[in-house]
């Protein structure tokens, strides 16, 4: 079985700017994969290369075994892409636009049942005959996802699908995308909400300045950051100098310390008592992907 996505030694330059510097990545069929990285890391460039919107300076990319340049027809047939920007065709309504989109991929009336299913699943049924211009931002976002799915692609790429989307819609979208994944679709997403990647994705690649700096299962990545975070509210808001090596973050009177093991709590409490600092609130938190992300991006 050929991998859903195979990326081999891909470089992309825009004039003097090297946006991608030798990316190698394989994503298997059926994976739920996250591409993380700060703005300008090269996530969208990589997606645009997969989609054929950009051409690589060198290297190869393939979708289910089909090269995106030399076998672009097969590759694009297998790929659905949800762009980051809320773009739409102002002339047509939701259903017309979805039918056109499926038609570009060679699908006719026989595909209408699937289009109805997508419309229904994304909660667009009562907007199916509304012009794209008149949809709210959230509805436009749903329509964009529907558009990427119109031709029933086995591989779905979502570029920041939940940017600027309210909590309710975000949960609804994820429930739908999880269902697609269960039904066998390979899902690749970029997101700024790290907790989303953490709960949804089985594997994560982190990009920084055009290079993959981490590529592992979500679980392994989480294990990379030592243990737990201890969040304390202190009065007076002062951290004894002996605890400074453990400090991860400080905001007002909230101090977050990194613990490699739970037993360190005793040491922290003793030091605070000795310095006569009172604990007003205390929370022990598992390290999350954000910690890994910050650690790696800072490195």
């Amino acid at each position, binding site marked *: 079985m050929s991998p859903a996505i195979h990326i081999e030694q891909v470089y992309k330059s825009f004039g003097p700017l090297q946006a991608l510097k030798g990316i190698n990545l394989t994503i298997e069929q059926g994976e739920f994969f996250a591409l993380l990285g700060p703005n300008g890391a090269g996530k969208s460039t990589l997606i645009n290369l997969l989609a054929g919107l950009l051409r690589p300076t060198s290297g190869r990319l393939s979708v289910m075994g089909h090269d995106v340049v030399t076998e672009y027809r097969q590759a694009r047939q297998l790929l659905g892409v949800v762009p980051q920007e809320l773009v739409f*065709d102002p002339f047509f309504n939701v259903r017309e636009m979805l039918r*056109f989109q499926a038609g570009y991929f060679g699908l006719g009336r026989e595909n209408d049942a699937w289009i109805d299913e997508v419309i229904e699943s994304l909660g667009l049924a009562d907007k199916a005959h509304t012009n794209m211009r008149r949809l709210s931002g959230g509805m436009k976002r749903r329509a964009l996802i529907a558009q990427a799915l119109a031709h029933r692609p086995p591989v779905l790429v979502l570029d920041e699908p939940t940017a600027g989307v309210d909590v309710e819609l975000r949960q609804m979208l994820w429930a739908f995308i999880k269902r697609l994944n269960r039904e066998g679709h390979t899902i690749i997403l970029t997101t700024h909400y790290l907790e989303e990647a953490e709960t949804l994705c089985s594997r994560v690649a982190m990009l920084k300045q055009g290079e993959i700096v981490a590529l592992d299962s979500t679980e392994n990545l989480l294990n990379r950051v030592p243990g737990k975070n201890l969040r304390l509210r202190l009065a007076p808001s002062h951290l004894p100098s002996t605890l400074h090596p453990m400090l991860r973050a400080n905001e007002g009177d909230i101090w977050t310390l990194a613990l490699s093991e739970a037993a360190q709590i005793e040491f922290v409490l003793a030091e605070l008592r000795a310095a006569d600092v009172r604990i007003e609130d205390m929370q022990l938190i598992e390290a999350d992907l954000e910690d890994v992300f910050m650690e790696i991006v800072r490195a």
Partner: protein
Amino acid sequence: MIGMWTLFKKEILRFWKVSFQTVAAPVITALLYLLIFSHVLESHVQVYPGISYTAFLIPGLMMMSLLQNSFANSSSSLIQAKVMGNIVFLLLTPLAYWEVFLAFLAAAIIRGIVVGGCVWLVSLFYIDLPVAHPFLILAFAVLGGGMLGALGIIAGIWAEKFDQMAAFQNFIIMPLSFLSGVFYSIHSLPPFWQKVSHLNPFFYMIDGFRYGFFGTGDIDPTVSLAMVAVSFLALSVLTLQMLKSGYKLRG
């Protein structure tokens, strides 16, 4: 084939949904030209013996409207899709560059012929226009619409904002169409300007098209047909090259 057909259908629907703007408005504009010029010049000018100035004017106006609207169809569709960003929905599809070309071209020709045909229909209320060579009329309509449709694709790919598109339209398309002999025979021009007119491909389209109605024109219609066909082919090759290379569309 379904993909190309879908794009063609979408391009047709796109102008048809706003047909007041894309069909009715240019027909009204052509009729205003017809009313004013025929009122002012009918009794003073006779270009060809036995043909009234109003009759002379109508095929020219039909062709001018056809050309301008073929250009407008492909160019405005592309520039809007580029500025709005929804061009990605086309670029993400497995459509080949030549399928995109043919779909845009065919829709542009249809819009041109619909507008030109409407000018003709309305003009029937004024005057009974002869039809000497119907196939010649059709050939010039299709080739002229195709040439401007291709030019519209080129402009749509090249322009990055509406301002540049307006420049293309106002500084290239408008002067070429107004100075092509729509309103006059080039034989009425001084010899130098007659020679300049021969460099304008629009002149051959108008003159050959008019020949199809009256059986008479400024030059031999086969020369016009050859000039228009060669210009159309040259522009098509250029357009196909641009689409194939992904110029300004795929980075």
